[in-house]
Structure formats: structure tokens, C-alpha cells
């Protein structure tokens, strides 16, 4: 495998530029990017004041008192680099990103297209200048490593450097061994008196392999100008969102749903053309008052056109009922998760019984609303209502708390069949007919003898009771703190109840019926 010609475009101090843009600072000021207490990049002004890569923060600040220290933010670097990359790809389609700020391009195509390597270098510089990076540098050499070193050894006056074919070894020979990026190898070689890449390349390859392993052997090959890495151009991600804008804005759900049909079809057809299906959908609804309502919907299988329209309809009904509060100007559909269509193909005789169940339940959902059909799981918690976690059909019910934990204070015995979520008021009376209170030590003021169930005025006699048991949850959190006392009572009708006493009030938590 031979070494191929490579063009490397380098945007100097890219992390500094991206960090300054994120923090709205002047990129020409003294700025240092710091990771783990060590400077990893700095601006030209900081370098002029003596700041270098590898310095500790304290040392860097002592050399340059006005230094602005920013934390490293690789995500922001990549995000800020994306427009630059797009601009570069508009002229040269095959670009590989080494890291934000450094890209490598296979030289053969652009050189032929632009009529020579110097012309290609000028074209790259022009494209980058158009993208707002006028100080970018370009190096062309055999292999990406030599090309990057060439780009780094340019000057602001001559921003492109060309190493002739076959000249990479000679170009790299005087450069320091540290450029291989292998600290262990560098340290050992320095002790042996080998300080330049040329001297390293002169060592016998089998001895390098024996001493430093495959990584050392690869570095040896690179130092000798035999960099065999190929350029693998990135595949630009496709924009799969679909947007429909309404002019004039619409304020009726049925109008919007009708208008959306073709957009939804196009959105799913574009995915289907690439043998993909949408399993999660983000719907963003823009309204006339300038708001944008986003929501992500999941699907147990994959979305069909009708499903997409249903989700938009439900989301609209969440904003207002039939006539909307604010007219809708745009609806944007974006896939939140996609999957290969092969995983969602129907069998030869249809999708089996689950398919029918899903269709029937989806029909009920479109009749009553998304939240009307629920699936249930058991969650963690002490109160019975906390242990019931409901999720709309088609979405994953993910209990936030683990039901398997011990949850001291949770109810022993068998679970109550009716969980009264709305906490209806009840009255608990002692033999004298006085409401029972529970004091701070958890003792009732008298034995419960009478009980008035929710939505009833008839007093029933308590035949058996147990408790009260304290439940003191999240006392460290003033918002979520809850301190209740629970009591089980059996009334003379034979019904059993689970009651809670909270802040002077009794309410029914659950019923055994």
C-alpha cells in the first residue's frame, strides 16, 4: 500500500476561537483553554505573553495577569466547526475531520479539478476564508501526518506549504520525536539520544517493534514518511426533518390535520426510501404568539402517516381544545429515533395478534386522546399511589424509583385493590365522637371507634384497626417532604380502608374491596 497525497487544512487555535464565541469574548484577547488544570490551547495574545500548552493554570496566570481561562468544551468545538465544514464541503465534497479545527482531504481529486496542488491549496484557503476562518493554513504532503506538520509550519504570510512527492521523510527528519504523540516512546528515545524523527526513522524497524510494539512500529513508519493511513471522507448526515408552514396561520385542529397529511407522507416516504422507519417522533408546533411547543412521541412499532397526524392532533389538543388559543404557523416533524425497516417488516400473514391489539388500542387513543389508554408498572415508594406508575400506550413506563429497594415503612400484607388517587376526605372518630388526632410521637388521641367514608355522611363503626404507622419521606427536601401517619380500619360493613393522617386531616389512601 502506497502513501497517498493528502491536504490538511488547519484552523489555528480552534478551541480558543470556539470557546471565545461561546463565552462572547474577543478571540484576539489573552485566552487559555484548560483541561484538568493544564493549558491545552491558548490564543496568540496569550502566547505572546509566554503562555504555552502544558502549563499549569497558576503558572500561566502568573505569566499573563489578564489571562481569561475557559474550560475545555469539545461539544462546543465540534458544534462551532460544523458550519465551517459545511462551507468546505460545498467546494470539496470528500472531507475527513481529524478533530474540530483540523480536516484532511485526499489531494488527488481536488488537485486534478483545480489544476494542480498549489491551486487546490488556494481553493481550500478561499473556502475557509469564506466561512469566517481567514487565518487558516494548508499543508500538502505524502500522508496526513506529514501534511499536518506542513500546515503547522506555515507562516501568516505564506499560509500554504507544499512538500513535494517523496519529500516527506526529508521534511520530517529535523522535527522532534515528541510529535509522534507517544510520551513513553519519546522519553525512552530521548535517553537514547534520539531526538528527531529522522534519527528515529533511521532505527531498524524490527528493533522498534520489539521495544515499542505495534504503536511504536506505526510511529516509526510515519516518521519515515510512509504514512499509509487513508482518508475516509465523512458522510454528511441527512436532514430528515419535514416542515409545513401555514400562511395565513390556521386555528382549527381539523384544518391542520388535513393540511399535514402530505407533509407526513413525504416525511415517512423519505425515510422509507433509505429503508428506515421512524420509531420516535419530535413534533414542534410554532404558534402565532411566537411560541414553539415541542414534544417527543414514542411508538411501540413504527409511525404510519395516520399515527403522525394523530400525534400532532393530540399535541394541538393539549394546547387548546377544538379552536386553538393561538393560531398555528408551522408544524415541524423530526425523527427522534429511527430504525432499519427490516426490523419492522410484517410477517407473510400479517404481524400476529399484537398487531391487532395495537391497532384497536390506537383507535381508542384517537377516540379519547393519547393519555386515555395506559399501561402500568410497579414503581418504588411507600404510599400505594407512588407504587403505581402509568404511561400512555406506546410509551415506555420507566419508574424513576426502584421497586426492589426495601422502602421501609411501606405497607405489609396484600395490596389494596382500589387506590384512591384523589385523596378523598374522611373522618375518624373516637368513642366520644371526637375526631382522632395523631401526635408527634405517633400516638392517636383515642382509639378509632367511628369512621365516615368518603362521599358519605353515615357513620360506621370501626370493628378492627391497626396503626398508626409513620411515613416520613424526603424530610430533607422542603418541597417533596411528606410526613403522614397511616391507619388500617375495618368497618361494620366488612370493608377495609387504608387511611392517612396528614397535617390535621384524614384522607383515604386506598380501599380493600
Amino acid at each position, binding site marked *: 500500500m502506497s502513501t497517498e497525497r493528502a491536504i490538511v487544512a488547519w484552523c489555528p487555535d480552534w478551541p480558543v476561537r470556539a470557546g471565545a464565541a461561546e463565552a462572547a469574548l474577543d478571540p484576539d484577547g489573552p485566552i487559555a483553554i484548560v483541561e484538568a488544570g493544564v493549558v491545552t490551547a491558548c490564543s496568540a495574545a496569550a502566547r505572546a505573553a509566554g503562555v504555552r500548552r502544558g502549563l499549569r493554570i497558576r503558572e500561566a496566570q502568573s505569566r499573563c495577569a489578564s489571562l481569561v481561562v475557559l474550560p475545555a468544551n469539545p461539544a462546543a468545538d465540534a458544534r462551532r466547526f460544523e458550519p465551517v465544514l459545511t462551507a468546505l464541503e460545498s467546494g470539496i465534497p470528500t472531507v475527513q475531520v481529524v478533530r474540530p479545527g483540523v480536516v484532511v482531504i485526499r489531494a488527488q481529486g481536488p488537485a486534478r479539478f483545480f489544476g494542480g496542488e498549489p491551486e487546490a491549496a488556494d481553493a481550500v484557503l478561499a473556502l475557509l476564508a469564506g466561512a469566517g476562518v481567514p487565518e487558516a493554513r494548508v499543508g500538502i504532503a505524502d500522508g496526513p501526518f506529514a501534511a499536518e506538520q506542513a500546515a503547522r509550519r506555515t507562516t501568516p504570510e505564506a499560509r500554504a506549504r507544499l512538500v513535494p512527492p517523496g519529500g516527506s521523510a526529508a521534511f520530517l527528519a529535523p522535527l522532534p520525536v515528541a510529535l509522534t504523540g507517544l510520551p513513553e516512546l519519546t522519553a525512552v528515545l530521548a535517553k537514547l539520544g534520539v531526538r528527531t524523527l529522522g534519527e528515529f526513522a533511521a532505527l531498524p524497524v524490527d528493533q522498534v517493534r520489539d521495544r515499542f510494539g505495534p504503536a511504536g512500529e506505526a510511529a516509526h513508519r510515519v516518521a519515515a514518511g510512509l504514512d499509509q493511513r487513508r482518508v475516509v471522507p465523512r458522510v454528511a448526515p441527512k436532514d430528515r426533518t419535514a416542515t409545513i408552514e401555514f400562511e395565513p396561520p390556521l386555528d382549527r385542529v381539523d384544518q391542520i390535520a388535513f393540511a399535514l397529511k402530505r407533509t407526513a407522507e413525504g416525511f415517512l416516504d423519505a425515510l422509507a426510501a433509505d429503508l428506515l422507519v421512524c420509531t420516535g417522533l419530535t413534533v414542534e408546533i410554532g404558534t402565532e404568539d411566537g411560541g414553539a411547543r415541542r414534544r417527543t412521541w414514542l411508538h411501540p412499532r413504527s409511525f404510519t402517516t395516520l399515527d403522525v397526524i394523530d400525534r400532532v392532533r393530540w399535541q394541538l389538543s393539549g394546547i387548546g381544545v377544538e379552536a386553538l388559543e393561538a393560531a398555528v404557523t408551522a408544524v415541524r416533524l423530526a425523527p427522534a429515533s429511527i430504525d432499519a425497516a427490516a426490523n419492522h417488516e410484517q410477517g407473510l400473514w400479517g404481524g400476529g395478534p399484537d398487531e391487532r391489539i395495537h391497532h384497536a388500542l390506537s383507535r381508542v387513543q384517537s377516540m379519547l386522546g393519547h393519555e386515555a*389508554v395506559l399501561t402500568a408498572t410497579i414503581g418504588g415508594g411507600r404510599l400505594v399511589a407512588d407504587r403505581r406508575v402509568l404511561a400512555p400506550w406506546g410509551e415506555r413506563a420507566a419508574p424513576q424509583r426502584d421497586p426492589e429497594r426495601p422502602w421501609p415503612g411501606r405497607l405489609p400484607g*396484600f395490596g389494596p385493590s*382500589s387506590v384512591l388517587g384523589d385523596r378523598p376526605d374522611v373522618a375518624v372518630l373516637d368513642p366520644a365522637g371526637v375526631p382522632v388526632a395523631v401526635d408527634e410521637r405517633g400516638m392517636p388521641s383515642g382509639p378509632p371507634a367511628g369512621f365516615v367514608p368518603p362521599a358519605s355522611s353515615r357513620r360506621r363503626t370501626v370493628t378492627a*384497626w391497626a396503626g398508626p404507622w409513620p411515613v416520613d419521606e424526603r424530610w430533607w427536601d422542603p418541597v417533596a417532604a411528606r410526613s403522614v401517619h397511616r391507619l388500617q380500619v375495618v368497618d361494620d360493613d*366488612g370493608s377495609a380502608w387504608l387511611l392517612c393522617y396528614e397535617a390535621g386531616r384524614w384522607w383515604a389512601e386506598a380501599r380493600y374491596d
Partner: protein
Amino acid sequence: MPSSALQLAPDERARTVEQLQAQIRAMQATGLGTRTLPTRPELAPLLPGGALKAGVAYAVPDSLTLAMLLMAGPSAAGGWCAVIGVPDFGVEAAAGFGVDLDRLVLVPQPGEHWLAVAAQIADVLPVVLLRPPARAAAGDTARLASRLRQRGSTLLVLGPWAQAEATLEVRTTAWTGIGTGSGYLAGRDVTVTVTSREIRAAHPVRIRDDRWCIEQAATRLEAV
């Protein structure tokens, strides 16, 4: 000496009568070609025919626990269940009785469309538990009944139901494990009264919390 049923002791006679009835029921069941659903063995004696039948309705007017127990058999055997109009449904209790939550669907607030929702879901799910928010018109229940028969789904109604195959009511309950200020609710003994076209009987059933089991204490025919 040739023995006849008349010469037997009273309890033995009752047992023989029951055995004969069971035989007749079994023969009738095969004759009519009705399909049955997997039923918990403890509940089998309560039900006419010895099992839940597919395509009919059962009324369980006053006990959600009993309805959960009826659901548990088909659910544990792989059937899907739906619960319509019961916002209070205690999921943990149902899971404890053997209802598989992975195959359970809840429609807590069907509103005025409850009959349409029930019909829609009964089309595809084998067991539907329904609490009617209002008394249904006779025509509507008949239409739903024919749909059930056609699709082979079983409807459990928490309330009175005109065309029920059987009505299961909890007559008396005794709670165990709870005292006055001591213990906790650990189990219950209930007597279930079953009313159907051919039978009216009361069965004591014990529901206990350890291992979430129910056990049949004894079977006593009240009136034949």
C-alpha cells in the same frame, strides 16, 4: 345390597349430587361447543361449568379483588386484559394476584363512549373488566353481548349486568391479622354467592397474603 342416592348420609348425598351435576355440565359444555379460559383452580368451583367461559359476561358487582382473581387465570396463561372505567385499579394488588402487567391495558376514563370503547377492545382482548359509569340500555348490552359471543371475549362487569352468565357477590368478609390497635390486614375469608341461571350457591374462599394465594376452605351448596 344395592345402594341408591336416597340411602346415603346427607353430606355424602350432596357430594354425589354435585358430582352428577358436574358431569352433566361437562357434557353440556362439549355439546354446546363453548370455549373456556384458563381459570385459577381455587375459583373453578365458583363458576358454572367449572371455568370462565369465553364469549360471555360475568357480573362482579361489589368486589374488585374478586374481579382481579378472575382476571389472574387468563392473564397468567398469556392472555391480554383490559380494565375500563376503573381509575382506582390497584396495579400492585393485581400483580400480586397473578395478573401480568405487561399484558394489562387501562382505560381509566372512557367517559360517555364507554360502550364503544368496551366493544372496540373486546374485539381484540380476551378479558375485559368494565365498570359501567351508567346503567346501560338493554339494546346496548345485547349488542355488546352478541359481539362478545362472536369474538369469544369474556367481560367482567363491576356492577349489575342484565345478561350475565353468573353474578358473583361477596356476602360476608372476615379480616384476619388485624386486631384493635395491633397487627395488620393479612388476609380475608369471604363467602362468595354465585347466582346463575341454573345455580345459586355460596362458597367460602380464603385470600391470604403470604405467597399471594387464595385457598378454598370448603364448598357448601346453599340451594340447588
